[in-house]
């Protein structure tokens, strides 16, 4: 009995977890391992490894002997660290979580069809190719009078045109990433709200609760887990995301986050790329930061207790 059940467990493990494990190794473990190795080399334009060294990290800690380039690299790194923190914090807190929650709450309170319509509108940018979405933003913030924002400011309010790209670069990337990122939170939270038993809402109303009390005492408790999930997941996603930043801002120094820096220093053609080992070192730091943040949030949001409770006991 025991032996056969152990064997069955082993085969279940292979059948159910095997493909996922293989996938995990091929797509996550291998790249990280490669990154780890490259980060400790001197790989550059020639893509050859001459020595194993920690000099990529030293470049970040103190100004190296390579004079000018070393100085520049160190400055870029700390600047990127700050910009990444600002970018992730504001995009996440304002849009991905808060705005996603507001969208979920309002669209579920609307009549079904109207709610579905508004959700679809918010999903549109996700369905459009990134380039189209980026072009839209480039048009909106165009510094000349052709830009949508400036048309509104000048024609409707009689204000001076603004150059968002130059004067408020971080606002541009927070807004553009936020508008697209809010839809994930909206979808997850909407389905969570939908899965709250209807009778709980009825009970709360009969008990005397108004809309705000219902949100506070019935809806929010049911959203604890999805909100934690969105926070952790989106933090990690934003840390490494650079697609829209690159498409809208280009390799501008004003929005050079960690992910952008790693990209431009390695793969971006014709803009000082080719510093593979340096990019790998930055990526490695980014991975470590991601892991630390994930662990911290995991603790903070008490996700452990939520994950640990098995819904069905398996023997």
């Amino acid at each position, binding site marked *: 009995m025991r032996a056969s059940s152990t064997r069955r467990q082993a085969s279940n493990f292979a059948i159910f977890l095997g493909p996922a494990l293989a996938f995990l190794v091929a797509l996550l473990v291998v790249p990280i391992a490669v990154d780890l190795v490259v980060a400790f080399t001197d790989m550059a334009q020639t893509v050859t490894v001459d020595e194993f060294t920690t000099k990529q990290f030293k470049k970040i800690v103190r100004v190296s002997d390579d004079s000018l380039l070393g100085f520049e690299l160190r400055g870029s790194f700390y600047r990127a660290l700050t910009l990444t923190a600002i970018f992730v914090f504001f995009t996440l807190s304002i849009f991905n979580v808060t705005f996603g929650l507001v969208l979920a709450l309002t669209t579920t309170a609307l009549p079904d069809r109207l709610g579905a319509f508004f959700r679809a509108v918010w999903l549109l940018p996700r369905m459009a190719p990134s380039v189209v979405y980026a072009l839209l933003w480039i048009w909106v913030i165009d510094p000349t009078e052709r830009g949508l924002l400036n048309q509104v400011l000048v024609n409707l309010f009689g204000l001076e045109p603004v150059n968002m790209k130059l004067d408020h670069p971080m606002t541009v990337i927070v807004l553009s990433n936020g508008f697209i990122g809010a839809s994930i939170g909206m979808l997850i939270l909407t389905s969570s709200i939908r899965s709250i038993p209807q009778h709980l809402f009825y009970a709360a109303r009969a008990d005397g609760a108004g809309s705000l009390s219902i949100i506070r005492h019935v809806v929010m408790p*049911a959203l604890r887990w999805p909100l934690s999930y969105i926070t952790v997941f989106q933090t990690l996603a934003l840390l490494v995301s650079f697609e829209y930043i690159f498409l809208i801002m280009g390799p501008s120094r004003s929005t050079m986050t960690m992910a952008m820096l790693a990209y431009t220093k390695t793969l971006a053609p014709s803009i000082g790329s080719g510093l593979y080992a340096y990019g790998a070192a930055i990526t490695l730091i980014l991975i470590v930061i991601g892991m630390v943040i994930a662990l911290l949030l995991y603790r903070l949001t008490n996700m452990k207790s939520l994950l640990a409770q098995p819904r069905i006991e398996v023997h």
Partner: protein
Amino acid sequence: MARVDLKNVTKDWGTAKAIDDISLSLENGEFAAVLGPSGCGKSTTLFMLAGIYLPTSGDILFDGARVNDVEARDRNVGIVFQSYALYPNMTVLQNITFPLRFKEISRADAERSAREIAELVEIEGLLDRRPNQLSGGQQQRVALARALVKKPNLLLLDEPLSNLDATLRLSMRTEIRRLQRELGVTTVLVTHDQIEAMTMADRIVCMNQGRIEQEGTPEALYSRPETVFAASFIGSPPMNLLAGEASDGGIKVGEAVLDTAGDVPPGAVKVGIRPEHITVNGEGVQAEILIAEPLGRETLYTARSVLGTTRFLEPTSVPRFKVGDQVRLGFEPEHTILFDGNHDRRLEGVRAHV
């Protein structure tokens, strides 16, 4: 405590009429049971009383004042849902005090009321638990306590006992009835269990397809059902209904002809006779036993005769007859109820007998 009136209330979901023009009055302190099959509109009626659903037309009055436009939270109605609908993130105590948050009551007073009511429903030992740590019966008591803690004008119970086992159901029946008497609160109990309705309520409202089929005391519904539906829905095992054709010579049922008393209008009729009112081996027709089912205190038989298939009860725990036995079945005219075969309504002042 309130007197409650429904006046020509209709609820149309667009796809179907869930409630079709019902009128009903409940006296202050009365315990009414709404009884009917699944989907007949019981919960809908209850939710309209609570202010959760709005009637499509018609009026709902509490103590004579129209409350159609009064929101659920201002109606002071306590409601127990079939699913109990306890707040999963709150403890039992927090669940019970929840309705008091919205009243001008201090925290200490609220907690005192909650403890009092918890004692009344005997859950004072469970106050720190969460709903998922409670059994069905305990959850049901918590839901009851939450409904009662604000001293509601009207208590609404939506099939509160359907998730409980037979023993617990029996004791909760008595307990709810005791509480209701003690507090004197006007109560509507929704159920599809006719025994629950008969034992607990002062009055039964029998519903079918969004209409009130009949209302009255449990005795009245049992002994004088107005429609074929009420006759077949109330009583367990259900009433025998023999389809026949009335003419001057009597009522022809199957191959037999029943004598009549009173003026039976010619045409299709149904003769109703309860299983416990069929006499065995007295005067009557020849029948063969098809099925014998011991029910504990009594035995239910199904038999075939010239009247068709009929069921009868015998007050013996061990079956007296076995399958294939021949018996004579008859009934007294005072136990028969005749229905118009076309409209399924009761015919007044007429009887039939073998």
